[in-house]
């Protein structure tokens, strides 16, 4: 289980850690942990110990505290480890130390500026190296606001590979634009250049790289930030065979979008 430290233009990122179990019955871990920051250089995962945390401790790690090299891709991972890690790793550590299921053991990641902050309850599991992404984005705001799409990707493999992400209008399936997203990175895609209307619902499709997409809104005054992840198609239904339904929803949309 990893906790993201993110960086996007004009904002600093933070990751707030607390060593408190989310429930009192699932994972009784209490040993001191070594907090590592991990980041990919394209060939390996670099690891660097930041601190030790004991049960009950809290810590805030910010993008301003760590070297620029750690956030060259916009993303570093915070990892609590029971054992020392080598400085260079071929893949991400597999031992889940801060881990529970109901609820998932999370921490708080987000962004801040001089006025305010925005939080997201985060935990990241590595994604498959080859996977697709389809999502609808209902968070575009209007007025004195900057709208960005963020796509967070983490894979076990430290390679940094880029792939296409295409943007369509979900109503008439018209193609709007194409951009690139990368593995083991946080990619920021500005959206205001596309002059969306309040009634538009853009749909994003990446055939090669999966990820967690976020809508990020930044008030031009700086006084308000907005961050929330968009849902995968599986979230449109509950119970039953959701995975199969998700596959059908994606197939149905992708067939139409590819023709557009």
């Amino acid at each position: 289980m990893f906790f993201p430290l993110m960086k996007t233009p004009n904002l600093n990122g933070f990751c707030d850690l607390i060593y408190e179990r989310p429930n009192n019955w699932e994972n009784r871990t209490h040993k001191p942990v070594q907090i590592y920051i991990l980041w990919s250089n394209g060939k390996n995962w670099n690891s660097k110990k930041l601190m030790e945390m004991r049960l009950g401790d809290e810590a805030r790690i910010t993008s301003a505290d760590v070297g620029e090299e750690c956030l060259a891709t916009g993303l570093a991972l915070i990892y609590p480890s029971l054992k020392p890690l080598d400085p260079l790793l071929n893949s991400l550590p597999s031992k889940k130390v801060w881990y529970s299921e109901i609820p998932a053991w999370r921490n708080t990641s987000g962004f801040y500026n001089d006025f305010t902050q925005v939080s997201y309850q985060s935990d990241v599991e590595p994604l498959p190296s080859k996977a697709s992404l389809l999502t609808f984005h209902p968070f575009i705001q209007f007025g004195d606001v900057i709208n960005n799409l963020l796509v967070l990707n983490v894979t076990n493999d430290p390679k940094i590979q880029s792939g296409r992400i295409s943007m369509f209008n979900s109503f008439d399936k018209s193609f709007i634009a194409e951009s690139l997203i990368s593995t083991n990175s946080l990619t920021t895609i500005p959206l205001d250049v596309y002059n969306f209307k309040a009634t538009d619902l853009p749909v994003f499709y990446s055939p090669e790289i999966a990820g967690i997409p976020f809508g990020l809104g930044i008030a031009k005054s700086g006084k308000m930030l907005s961050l929330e992840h968009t849902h995968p198609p599986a979230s449109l239904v509950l119970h039953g065979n959701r995975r199969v339904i998700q596959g059908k929803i994606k197939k149905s949309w992708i067939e139409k979008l590819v023709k557009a």
Partner: protein
Amino acid sequence: MTDVLIKATKIKRRAKLLLFIGKKLTKAPSADSAVISDLFPIRNSNLWKTEFELLNVLGLIAGENNQKEPYSVNFYFYDSTGELLGIREIEIKNIGRTTIKIVNLMEHELKEAATFAVFHPSISGKVEMLGSYLAERGYSGYEFQNLGVKGYVHGNLDAVALSNGKVEPLGNSGLIPRYYTVQHCLRGPAKYEFVFTNPTSEKIKITPNIFLNKKKWLAKKSFTMNSLGSHTFTVDIKENEKAYVRFKSKLYLGRPVVFRISNDSMDVFHG
């Protein structure tokens, strides 16, 4: 000897699992044609506005967001005691997204509404659902002090179903109370508001506990929520103070929506 210990540990874990999570987090609705919604908190005052991003969920599932046939969605409004105050039918226009200003619906009998659920038409018979149900888990947007930018948060409790015209709570609760620690360090100066909804068919008692400045856990006054009721628990954290908060209840997942208000701005996220 080691084998015996491993076996005993496994049995203990299974017993714990049965004791704490004997059932699923949420029940499946009783009718095949049911649709599901979360209970979305309303913030409505001089300081707050609530909006809802209404999407054509049926069309998104079916792979067609160009909805030529009329398509209406029902908003069910509840007060903080869980009483149904009224229903408003909204026709989805044939557009990609409709932003609903909740305050515009809160007239007459809906003035004291504290939460709402959004029920789409049943998809049963239109799309093969393989035992799944259409779910509105969508996004509420909250604006504070006319800052011009909303903070969004999605639903996360899959609270209620509309089954054959009746609202059915879907949340499960257990026999033994358990703690849920909000995985967030409260940092001052800030006011934190934790908004709970009760997705179960039972009354639920919640006892907040606070761990302030690394001293010790202190129990605060408990509160009780009726089925489909809601409650806001508020904590003020002073400058340079830090705290954790946990909630003891029989809810399987006592996860609130968290509002952090500080420096004339706010941050909203699910706990």
